[in-house]
């Protein structure tokens, strides 16, 4: 029903609607679709899905992180099980057919001979079939140090061997060690990034929002930390950790060091984002409406750049994993009995190893895969971070 038009020259009546106010009514009338009604999170997810590699990487990393929970079950041997008869045994290949007959997955028994001129162990396949067992009883372990168990996903035949990726100088199964190493290597990045994330957000946030003298001091500190090459800093910090510390404390110390040197970039990003965002009109509106400082920061500013931060944090994790391998290579990282991929790779630090026992380089493959996956995931997250673009 239209209100009556007044006579020309007369003032317009104040139109008052008696219907209850529903802010969403007009939007619904404008024609709604899944797209216009989707929340920001949902839009991000749609955008993220478009980056196929990122999606695959995300799933891969999820599987990797879930698998480190049940490493004891997945690994055919225990971390420190020594097979004295098979030192530097090359990788065994899994066969399905024996003399044209299907037997299921099996390996041939290996025979070792010492080459008396080169003193090299030479392994040859014999004709004896050793079928693999699945969900079988093998090395006993304490699952997470809680209860005794001896189930494994796959184990060698009774009195047989199964070294899919060969063994090292003490006859330890490389595959099992890689699986156990994942537990340390994968978590070191997460713990390190958590340290750097907290430091970066708190310090950068304070500097960005308060500005003034505090900002000036933080800027100088960041400049100082960034102008010293990272390797000497690692060296110095790693060298002050006493040798008497337990390996676990050293592990925590290393993650802390990696995080301590990484926060500067994040803090800078937070600061500059805050600087630009706090000039936005909606922040002014929030101030005029009487919102408190904490509400403005927590409700209006942080969500504005959180997605970017998470993306850049994801991209920083590979650096930490590589940093750990570098520290271990220099002999300053983790030490046995703690086993990480970096520790495993230090065994392959000479040219001799590449010439004679190239399978000791296998730990480099999970390093590459995980780093690639984190990079793709980070790329995808970054593209998805701003779905309105």
């Amino acid at each position, binding site marked *: 029903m239209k209100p009556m038009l007044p006579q020309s020259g007369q003032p317009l009546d104040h139109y008052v609607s008696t219907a209850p106010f529903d802010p969403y009514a007009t939007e619904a009338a404008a024609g709604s679709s899944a797209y216009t009604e989707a929340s920001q999170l949902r839009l991000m997810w749609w955008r993220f899905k478009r980056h196929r590699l990122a999606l695959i990487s995300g799933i891969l990393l999820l599987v990797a992180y879930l698998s480190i929970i049940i490493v004891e079950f997945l690994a055919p041997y225990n971390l420190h099980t020594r097979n004295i008869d098979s030192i530097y045994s090359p990788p065994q290949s899994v066969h399905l057919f024996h003399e044209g007959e299907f037997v299921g997955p099996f390996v041939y028994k290996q025979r070792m001979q010492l080459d008396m001129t080169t003193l090299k162990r030479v392994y040859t396949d014999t004709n004896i079939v050793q079928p693999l067992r699945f969900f079988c009883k093998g090395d006993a372990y304490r699952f997470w140090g809680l209860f005794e168990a001896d189930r494994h996903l796959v184990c060698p035949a009774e009195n047989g061997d199964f070294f899919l990726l060969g063994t090292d100088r003490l006859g330890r199964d490389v595959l099992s060690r890689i699986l156990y190493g994942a537990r340390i290597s994968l978590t070191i990045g997460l713990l390190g990034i958590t340290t750097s994330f907290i430091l970066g957000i708190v310090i950068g946030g304070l500097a960005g929002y308060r500005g003034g003298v505090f900002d000036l001091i933080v800027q100088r500190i960041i400049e100082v930390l960034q*102008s010293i090459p990272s390797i000497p800093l690692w060296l110095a910090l790693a060298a002050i950790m006493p040798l008497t510390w337990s390996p676990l404390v050293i592990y925590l110390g290393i993650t802390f060091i990696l995080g301590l040197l990484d926060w500067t970039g994040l803090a800078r990003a937070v600061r500059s984002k805050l600087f630009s965002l706090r000039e936005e009109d909606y922040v002014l509106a929030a101030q005029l409406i009487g919102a408190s400082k904490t509400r403005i920061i927590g409700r209006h500013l942080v969500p504005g750049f959180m997605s970017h931060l998470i993306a850049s944090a994801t991209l920083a994790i590979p650096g930490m994993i590589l940093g750990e391998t570098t520290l271990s290579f220099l002999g300053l990282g983790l030490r046995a009995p703690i086993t990480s991929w970096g520790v495993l790779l230090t065994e392959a630090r000479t040219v001799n190893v590449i010439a004679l026992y190239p399978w000791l380089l296998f730990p480099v493959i999970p390093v590459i895969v995980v780093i690639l996956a984190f990079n793709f995931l980070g790329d995808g997250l970054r593209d998805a971070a701003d779905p309105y673009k």
Partner: protein
Amino acid sequence: MLRYILWRILVMIPTLLLISMLVFTIIELPPGDYFESYIEELRAIGEKADLQEIEELRARYGYDKPIPIRYLNWVGGMLVGDFGYSFEYRLPVSEVVGDRLWLTVLVSFVTIALTWIIAFPIGVYSATRQYSWGDYGLTLFGLIGIAVPNFIFALILMYFANIWFGTTIGHLMDQKYLNQPMSWDKFWSILEHLWIPVIIIGTAGTASMVRRLRANLLDELQKQYVMTARAKGLHPMKVLTKYPLRMSLNFFISDIGSILPSIISGAEITAVVLSLETTGPMLIKALQSQDMYLAGSFLMFLAFLTVIGVLVSDIALALFDPRIRLKGGATK
């Protein structure tokens, strides 16, 4: 502008002071000092240390004095160009560094030049054809360069260079040319060895540069002026090169800060694995043996270069990009 430059130079002073304190702490933090580890080392190989000589050295370099005094001595010396004395090499620091500096600059310079030449076209290609197979392939290839730990890559490349081309393992030249004057044979030998470190150090740098160029260019290409330019029928090449490419190159300039010191120090880990005669391995060895003046002065030198580099890049950015130059301060 002049005010800005003056202000920046003034701010450098407290920054450098802080850096010098941090460097001094880094070197002092690990327990013990060079002389203790030196005596230990001699004892380990069954020789007796000349304790009197060591005491003399200790006294001459103020190791009997409290830490703040030693710090002041060190900083004061550097101000007048005295970088101290390397205990390990028994030479003044400037002489130890001097020989290695030129080789390091050579390796780094070739690497950086190559990085730019390769990264530039790839980055532009990846950005203009986002999510194409070429983009995916090149990104993957570059990422592998980042993902392989440098020391493993160095070992593998060194091994195959030896098998395929008979290049001697490690070093920057055949050992017989070491400490020889420059000759054609020596030059050839350096060239023969140079490509291995250049490839190893270059891959990671190239990959990260491609990524940044791609990301920056993509941001720029989504802006409205690009669409305007396209809409009015400008040649695609011109649309790309006239503004978006120029804008996305800002990070090249802001990179000067980190490039300057890396030219001097080189990639340490790769250099250690390949036993290159560059400054990187020297620095790490000095840090490990607590050769205080060598490590400290060299670190300080690197940090100084970074600070200078950041200053140069900030001034260059302000000169090239009016948006940065004319930006007002915060209003609230």
